[in-house]
């Protein structure tokens, strides 16, 4: 129970996010209207993705310093969960864009950057699957993972800010904190970020334990 308190916290935070996020009062704004509630689902996906991919990079670095199956498995599983969050982020973003910008895909630099970022990580999965030998696969995909993360950062955070973008917080647009006059959005937003990220960590935890057990089973058979 002592070790699992954060799982209970995750459930509570997500229940809070969904319930309060759907029911509470939100600022009445033109164009955005009720879609502003997507703030609690779309934005945390990207926060979660970046944090989880950071976890993946940290474990890749740890693998290069001290090779062990555990570090490799955690790096791989967190990259996969990061990709899941990225896909969800892009889907919720497209849904939101349909109602506010008028199109699912409007060739916006932020959208394109996110799509390319996902391609980089899909390439990571392809790279992993093209090695038969376990140690070589682990080392080379760790190298690529660090390289890919270094390429992802300018793509998501620097390039969209240099060009004209419809996305809030880019191309001279104000971020969402400008709409949040009485901090009522923040009350739900921060718990949402924490909740979704913890959920990602939980998935990584379960999946990497399963993967490690499976590998131990294969060794013994």
């Amino acid at each position, binding site marked *: 129970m002592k070790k699992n308190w954060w799982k209970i916290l995750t459930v509570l935070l997500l229940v809070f996010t969904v319930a309060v996020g759907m029911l509470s009062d939100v600022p009445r704004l033109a164009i955005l209207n009720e879609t502003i509630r997507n703030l609690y689902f779309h934005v945390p996906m990207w926060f979660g993705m970046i944090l989880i991919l950071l976890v993946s990079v940290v474990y890749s670095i740890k693998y290069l310093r001290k090779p062990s199956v555990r570090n490799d498995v955690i790096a791989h599983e967190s990259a996969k969960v990061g990709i899941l969050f990225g896909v969800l982020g892009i889907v919720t973003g497209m849904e939101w864009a349909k109602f506010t910008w008028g199109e699912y895909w409007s060739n916006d630099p932020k959208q394109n950057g996110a799509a*390319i970022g996902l391609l980089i990580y899909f390439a990571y999965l392809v790279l992993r699957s093209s090695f038969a030998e376990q140690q*070589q696969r682990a*080392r*080379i995909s760790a*190298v690529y993972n660090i390289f*890919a993360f270094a390429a992802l950062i*300018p*793509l998501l955070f620097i390039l969209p800010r240099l060009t004209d973008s419809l996305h809030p917080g880019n191309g001279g647009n104000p971020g969402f904190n400008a709409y949040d006059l009485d901090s009522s959005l923040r009350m739900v937003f921060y718990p949402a970020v924490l909740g979704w990220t913890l959920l990602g960590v939980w998935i990584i935890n379960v999946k990497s334990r399963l993967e490690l057990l499976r590998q131990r089973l294969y060794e013994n058979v």
Partner: protein
Amino acid sequence: MLFKEVIYLMQKDFLLELRQKYAFNGMLLYVSSTVFVCYLSFGLRSNVLQVPVWNALFWIIMLFTSVNAIAKSFMQENRGRLLYFYSIVSPQGIILAKILYNACLMLVLALICFVFYAFVLGNPVEDIPMFLLSILLGAIGFATSLTMISGIASKAANSSTLMAVLSFPVIVPMLLMLIKMSKNAMDGLERAASLDELLTLLAINMIVITVSYILFPYLWRS
């Protein structure tokens, strides 16, 4: 020490190139036939292509040329020679030498490509020094990121497919900046307008070189 190694390794690469004329002549033919295919498939006389199309086509040709040229940089070395290098030089020396060599190779190829392309498809560029600067930055940028990727891909079984899959997403940000910068040069905008792109390109190059320098020893060990 490192500097000396880099110089020696580059000398060796240039010497091999000079003797075999393997990569260079092949790539030269590749560039010229691609440009000629573009010319034929658009089916037009010079100076009819619109500026954005001209620009995009040029950088797409450059992209494929560089992927093909640089993919060879680790695959052409045989196993015995790699083992020999492993025992006498540091991995940092190897990656820096390869990056510098590929940058030189790409620069020459890009200049030839530009001259031939402008000759065949017309030359709408107004600010040529600025366009040449964007070619220089492009050659260096492609060389840095693709050298590392080709090192990664050469370890795998299906390396030529992997080379394309791994390199395109990584290179897209650089390509976007280059296209914007060379578009500015083609329209003859004042040079201060391209400063943002120039600095971003330099920053991306620095990141990629640093990461390659740190990571290559781990790749080399296997």
